[in-house]
């Protein structure tokens, strides 16, 4: 199934060249979780990253649905 991953700011360096505006489309197996999708990228998977599903705070073991967007950014002092 097709999902999207969006990386923000310095995390964008981890995206493949086909990404547009920080977003890449991925074909993943059914049952893929948020954690599994984001693990494809070389970003820290600890408290120093914020990872949300469709903009919502969820457990990393949440399975994805078609068209979902997983977004990640570095947790650092904000605006």
């Amino acid at each position, binding site marked *: 199934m097709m999902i999207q991953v969006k990386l923000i700011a310095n995390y964008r360096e981890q995206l493949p060249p086909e990404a547009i505006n920080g977003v890449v489309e991925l074909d993943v197996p059914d049952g893929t979780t948020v954690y599994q999708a984001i693990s494809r990228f070389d970003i820290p998977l600890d408290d120093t990253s*914020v990872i949300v599903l469709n903009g919502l705070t969820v457990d990393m073991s949440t399975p994805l649905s078609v068209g979902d967007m997983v977004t990640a*950014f570095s*947790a650092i002092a904000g*605006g």
Partner: protein
Amino acid sequence: MYGWHLKVLRVNLTTQKITQEDVDPKIARDYLGGRGWAIHYLYKEMDPMADALSPENVLIFATGPLTATPAPTGNRYMVVTKSPLTGALAHSNSGGEFPTWMKRTGFDMFIFEGKSSKPVYLFVNEDQIELRSAVHLWGKDAHETTDILKAETSAEARVACIGQAGENLALMAAIMNDKHRAAARSGVGAVMGSKNLKAVVAMGNKNPPLHDPEGMRTLSVNTSKEVGADVKKGSNMRIYGTSYVPQVTNTLGILPTRNFLQGTFEHVNNIDGDALKNQYLIRHTPCYRCPLSCGRLTEVPDGPYKGKGEGPEYETISSLGTGCGVSNLAALVKANYLCNEYGMDTITTGMTIAAAMEMYEKGYISEEIIGMPLKFGDHDAMIAMIKLMAFREGFGEDLAQGSYRLAEKYGHPEIAVTTRKQEFPGYDPRGSQGMGLLYATSNKGASHMEGDVAYEEVFGVPVKENPLTTEGKPELVKHFEDSFALMDSSGLCVFVAIRYAFNKDRMILPLRLAEMMNLSTGAQYSPEEVMIAAERVYNLERMFLIKAGSTEDTLPYRMLHEPLPDGPAKGKVVELDKMLPEFYALRGWDEKGVPTKQKLMELGLPLN
């Protein structure tokens, strides 16, 4: 005494008399410095009911015990006064270089009283203290003023001043320092203008002696190493400043768009940090001794918006940009430059224009009154409004009063997204419930800098909280409010303190700040003691607010009754009723938000 000079410079602008005073060491300790000292003096010395633009208002510049020390980012000052925008307390913070130079004069605080009969500026070089004519500076913008004053005093001096907006008493006027940095919010620049005080010029070599210089140096080196390691990993801050945030808040559906009619902006990619980095960024420009370096020099090299300066930061992008529906980055950058030159708070400026745009589109204000069409997204009209506002010309007379008075004048107060008449910053609280409680209860009106729980609800520092829930938010808001009072009193920048001292363990921040302040002052604070001092400061500010007659803790109509129409927080309003009673109980305040006698006694505060 170490860390603090324990010296106040008092300037009576009416009589032109300048005096020096010592600070009682017990007051120094109990109120920490900076914001804490300032509210102690303000509460003691002025009638909170006084007109904010009258000579009875008192304007205070205050540094903290870590300002002008090697503490990382120990380079902040506070401007504290009564706000003409809110009628409540104003406390606005700024960095750059001026704060350290101010403290090197040998004084911790400058207190301005009365009103000069003609424009003046204050020059302080240690014992050489003079009020000088500023007649030749009146009408000049903040950048011209800074250049002229450095040329006629010393290249070694640093300048804080107002631009035309402050002279003209526009209620969003800021006090600019080092040209591009601002004590921005609540109209503090208008208070300075009302006193005919154009600028303050500071220089000197009186660094405060430190209790433990070696310990302070070691701590500074270690923290800088920690920050340096983070920067090496690719710190967002040095590359983007805060301009990467629109992508974050847009993802969460809390990016103020078209005067909070929406929570997402379809053109966000046009005006985000990457667009800025790729098109206009020249280099990062740190405040004095800052290892984080979030400031950035930018330039629009050609075209109608040609210019060079600093910014925009997130709060400018979310107000003059998405707030106004503007997607032209060059125009947005130019608008930021103009605000810096005229000396204006970009949040209130942008959100007042946004409110006017909504009122124009709904037919509440005509093109004849405005002088031109004012649709969302019209970046040229947005720039034109900034100029009218700074000079109070034509429709600018209405705009210069801020969005609350504007919306009220034209019969639609529900359009204004304010608390205590101050415009919201860049987090829609319908999708960030803790921010809703913060805006509602903030002693200075809507402000993220009163206790920015977005760090947890949005940015995951130190942990990511669910922004859509209300559980635990009263405790979170109280903790952040007290923590910000502590940081603002210390002289440290919240960015470095938040990033490197906030922890799941709530006592790490006071532990580290107490450690730094002890190295500076030798006061032997315990972590518990500095948090109590911060709570003392916060409660005294509350008492000022109550005596100023502004007590209702609520939110504007849109936040309580108009659900967000889009994004992840679609359908949400702020559930203030669920949070407010618990917040009051945690604070030790009664059901109307007034500190109880018991709470005041516990904190050693005056009972009347």
